[in-house]
């Protein structure tokens, strides 16, 4: 480049300089966002700015869905109605038995003076669309802050746990599914109460139970239910069924694959459970006695 350019040739910094600048900036943003979660507030402000555009983009899709609903055939509705009636009858019978059990349970709990698992309310919600990020297993549902949804609430379908609310907007919220990579749920084996943690392995992959020693008593077709140990998931909800247990002598842990019991990829309607509990703070770890440390130092 000539040092004395006419003014109308000026183009700002050269493209390569710009590239280096902006590429390193994006790299910094990536690390800051992923490892340190620094940018959540920036993300919120940005999404407020983008909201009108997003609303415009989703308007035709939701309009199409509304017309689709309107045009559902009557026979289909009748069939569904009959099925629902049947299910309700069955559920009612169960409920009658449940009432007696609940009463008994309350009495027992009063005797042992433990914290009762609170009876929470449920919010029925419909899936609007898949999350736009293809790398993560997320859904957008049609209930938000105005309906009382909070982050961390549990989402279930008639069969079991679907996932967890991870982001809440005023009118919609984002559900992270069980299958999201490295999403962990503390569970126990229904048959014997063995505690474990189930991890998601990515969209449409089976779940995995990790860190179980080779001798642990877990078999094919075992049902895993939430243990409620984390304070997020209420106890006793079915999560997954064990599909395969690989005892590989070369590895320290058993490889256990399981399948979500809920239809996480199919259902349209889910229930958001509001059963958040306030847990007492975890006890502080015991302090090392001073004398021991001194001794060790002396040995060295």
């Amino acid at each position, binding site marked *: 480049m000539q040092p004395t350019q006419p003014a109308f040739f000026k*183009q*700002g910094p050269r*493209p*390569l300089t*710009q*590239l280096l600048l*902006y*590429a390193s*900036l*994006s*790299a*910094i*943003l*990536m690390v*800051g*966002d*992923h490892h340190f979660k620094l*940018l959540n507030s*920036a*993300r919120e402000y*940005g*999404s407020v700015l*983008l909201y009108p*555009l*997003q609303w*415009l*983009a*989703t308007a*035709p*899709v939701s309009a199409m869905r509304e017309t689709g609903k309107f045009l559902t055939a009557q026979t289909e509705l009748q069939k569904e109605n009959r099925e629902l009636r049947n299910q309700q009858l069955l559920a009612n019978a169960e409920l009658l038995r449940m009432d007696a059990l609940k009463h008994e349970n309350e009495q027992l709990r009063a005797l042992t003076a433990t914290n009762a698992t609170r009876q929470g309310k449920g919010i029925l919600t419909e*899936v*609007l*669309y*898949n*999350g*736009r*990020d*293809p*790398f*993560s297993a*997320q*859904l*957008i549902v049609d209930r938000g802050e105005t309906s009382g949804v909070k982050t961390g609430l549990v989402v279930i379908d008639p069969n079991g746990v679907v996932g967890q609310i991870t*982001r809440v907007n005023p009118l919609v919220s*984002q559900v992270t599914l069980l299958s999201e*990579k*490295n999403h962990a749920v503390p569970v126990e084996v229904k048959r014997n109460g063995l505690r474990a943690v189930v991890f998601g*392995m*990515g*969209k*449409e*992959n089976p779940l995995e139970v990790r860190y179980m020693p080779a001798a642990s008593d877990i078999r094919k077709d075992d049902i895993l239910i939430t243990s409620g140990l984390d304070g997020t998931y209420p106890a006793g909800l079915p999560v997954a069924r064990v599909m395969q247990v690989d005892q590989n002598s070369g590895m320290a842990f058993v490889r256990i694959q399981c399948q979500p019991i809920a239809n996480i*990829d*199919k259902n*349209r309607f889910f229930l958001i459970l509001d059963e958040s509990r306030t847990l007492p703070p975890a006890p502080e770890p015991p302090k090392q006695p001073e004398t021991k440390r001194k001794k060790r130092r002396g040995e060295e």
Partner: protein
Amino acid sequence: MPVTRELLKPVKTSFIIFSFIVALLFNLIPFPFSHGNLFVLPDLVALLLLYWGMHQPRKVGVGTAFWLGLALDIADANVFGQHSLAYCLTTYVVASRRRQLAVFPLWQQALYMLGLLLLNQFIMQLVRKILGAPFIGWGYFVGCFIAALLWPLITRLLQHPQRKESPSEL
């Protein structure tokens, strides 16, 4: 037909902005709720960045690519900087090769753009892989081919307002 053979009117900045808003809208159309990992919708923002980066390098450059990428990252709830990084790199490539590209016929340009769009998706896949996401299948790259097929169409469409009206007085 090489694009340079005819003289075009200067483009209005407002038209560029308008085209980007339309592309953003298109990109924000949600995936209907279904399973399967086929992303047939082309990435229109990337395509427009390549187009304007090639034809209007003074107005649309690496900086524009960065900010648009950031907007998409926010809208998609991706990792911050994933789209920006990919867009910056491809816009730089197209800007530095624009004189060579301008003499290519449209179908050759489309082939070149296909390569760049695939590079885009590859960078994003790589970034997510490094940050721990699983590989989500080859369906992720299908949109690139459709976008490349759209290249001649987009070029004609966006140049339409720049073409001179029939010479009535001379």
